[in-house]
């Protein structure tokens, strides 16, 4: 297995007005391998979204560094694609227009860009919706566009920030299968942030459990379930055991952090 993405002692502090700096992430070091699917779970407020933004270079860490193929990350780059949680599609651009954006920024020839976008539209199952605007699409379709948009620049690493959080349960399950299909097809390295434990276990090769306040790695759990995975796997004792284990780890955190809130 080839090392793809590495973080070294990432720390992040936010300066909150006149109070003392708030430590959001503390000493996060991890290695992610090429074509690996890694999920990050944690109680809300554990900094998982901040961590993902640091990986993309949208935020700079207070200390530590992110390396991709051994190269230090100094900002967003074409080797990473970011799938946002919601509503970040440009409303004045059609499905096609949204997917074309990254290619236009890279000044790719028009015909080539359109061919790539069309291929992705087929891949995420949106044929026939090329000239629809985001407000004409359902939540699930919008997240398909969001995924295709990130894939358009053919990034090696796909960073996904709770992409299915705003979807209803059935749509979310369909999208999980779709994501697995796309990931298998394109062999991207995926870092997937979620608060849904079963989603993390179902999708991932490894699940990183973060502890909160400040966010730090509590445990990294390998998910050795065979692939390809189908929904039936969610009822197997092995799957349930993984979910239980992560849930137990998080439970301490959830009660810990709500206890902290009560004190403050």
């Amino acid at each position, binding site marked *: 297995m080839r090392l793809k993405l590495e973080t070294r002692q990432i720390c992040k502090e936010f300066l909150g007005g006149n109070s003392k700096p708030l430590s959001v992430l503390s000493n996060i070091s991890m290695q992610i391998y090429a074509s690996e699917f890694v999920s990050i779970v944690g109680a809300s407020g554990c900094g998982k979204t901040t961590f993902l933004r640091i990986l*993309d270079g*949208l935020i700079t860490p207070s200390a530590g560094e992110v390396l991709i193929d051994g190269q230090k990350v100094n*900002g*967003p*780059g*074409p080797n*990473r*694609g*970011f799938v*946002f949680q919601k*509503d*970040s*599609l*440009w*409303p*004045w651009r059609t499905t096609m227009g949204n997917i074309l*954006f*990254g290619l*236009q*920024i890279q000044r790719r020839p028009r015909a080539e860009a359109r061919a790539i976008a069309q291929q992705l539209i087929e891949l995420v199952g949106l044929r026939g919706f090329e000239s629809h*605007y*985001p*407000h004409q699409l359902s939540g699930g379709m919008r997240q398909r566009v969001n995924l295709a948009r*990130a894939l358009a*620049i053919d990034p090696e690493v796909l960073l996904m920030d709770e992409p299915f959080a705003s979807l209803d349960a059935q749509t979310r399950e369909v999208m999980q299968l779709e994501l697995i299909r796309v990931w298998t097809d394109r062999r991207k390295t995926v870092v997937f942030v979620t608060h849904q434990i079963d989603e993390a276990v179902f999708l991932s090769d490894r699940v990183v459990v973060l502890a909160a306040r400040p966010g730090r790695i509590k445990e990294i759990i390998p998910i050795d379930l065979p692939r390809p995975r189908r929904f039936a796997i969610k009822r197997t004792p092995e799957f349930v055991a993984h979910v239980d284990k992560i849930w137990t780890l998080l439970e301490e955190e959830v009660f810990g952090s709500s206890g902290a809130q009560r004190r403050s």
Partner: protein
Amino acid sequence: MALVLIAWELIGRYVLTSKLMFAPLSAVLAEFAKLWGTGELERHMLVSFTALGVGFAIAAVIGIAIGSLIATSETIGDYVDPVINALYSTPLVAFSPILILVFGIGPASTMAIVFLLVVFPILINTTAGIRSTDASLIEAALSFSASKFEIFRRVLLPSALPFIVAGFRLGIGRGLVAVFIGELTGAREGLGYLISVSGQTFNVPAMFVGVLVLAAAGILCVALLEYVEAKIAPWRHFELKA
């Protein structure tokens, strides 16, 4: 609408019968046909609408440019914002005598007054539109390594476009006032001149012709811009309905 027109005709015929104060619709229409026939009305219209168009176009370009600068640079915004707000709330028409002195009698001074009145609503709306751009839309562009200029061109400007068109709509009304004010004292032709001269020579029907043409132009432009607004930002109408 029809009732208003009938009422106008009846009042002109039977209530306000003084020819110095009012004219029935039929007399106004007759005057319209007469002025149109001689080509005089077309000449006034051409002068007025050229002044409006040129002044408006310059105001749009400069308003969008300065509005964008204010919205994208905090330093410029901090210095210029208070000045803009003060000027916007000033009755700028009061400056028209100075502009007539500077630009002389003729279309140039009318254009200058149109510019002065129209530029502020466009500028302020451009600034507001850019500032109200959803941060997540900017972040999405940043994730594709878009440069500052690309973000301006491909995210901020399209996001602000409905605001800018709304600024145009506000500007049209003010622009028509400016044409009238400018030509009232600073011109030898144009609809404002026609209105003022007709008023002074007690030619009430001709005065109403001028007023009606200006009003029709305003209604037409506003309707056109409302149509454009709906066309360029269908998602906004969707959001309002939802």
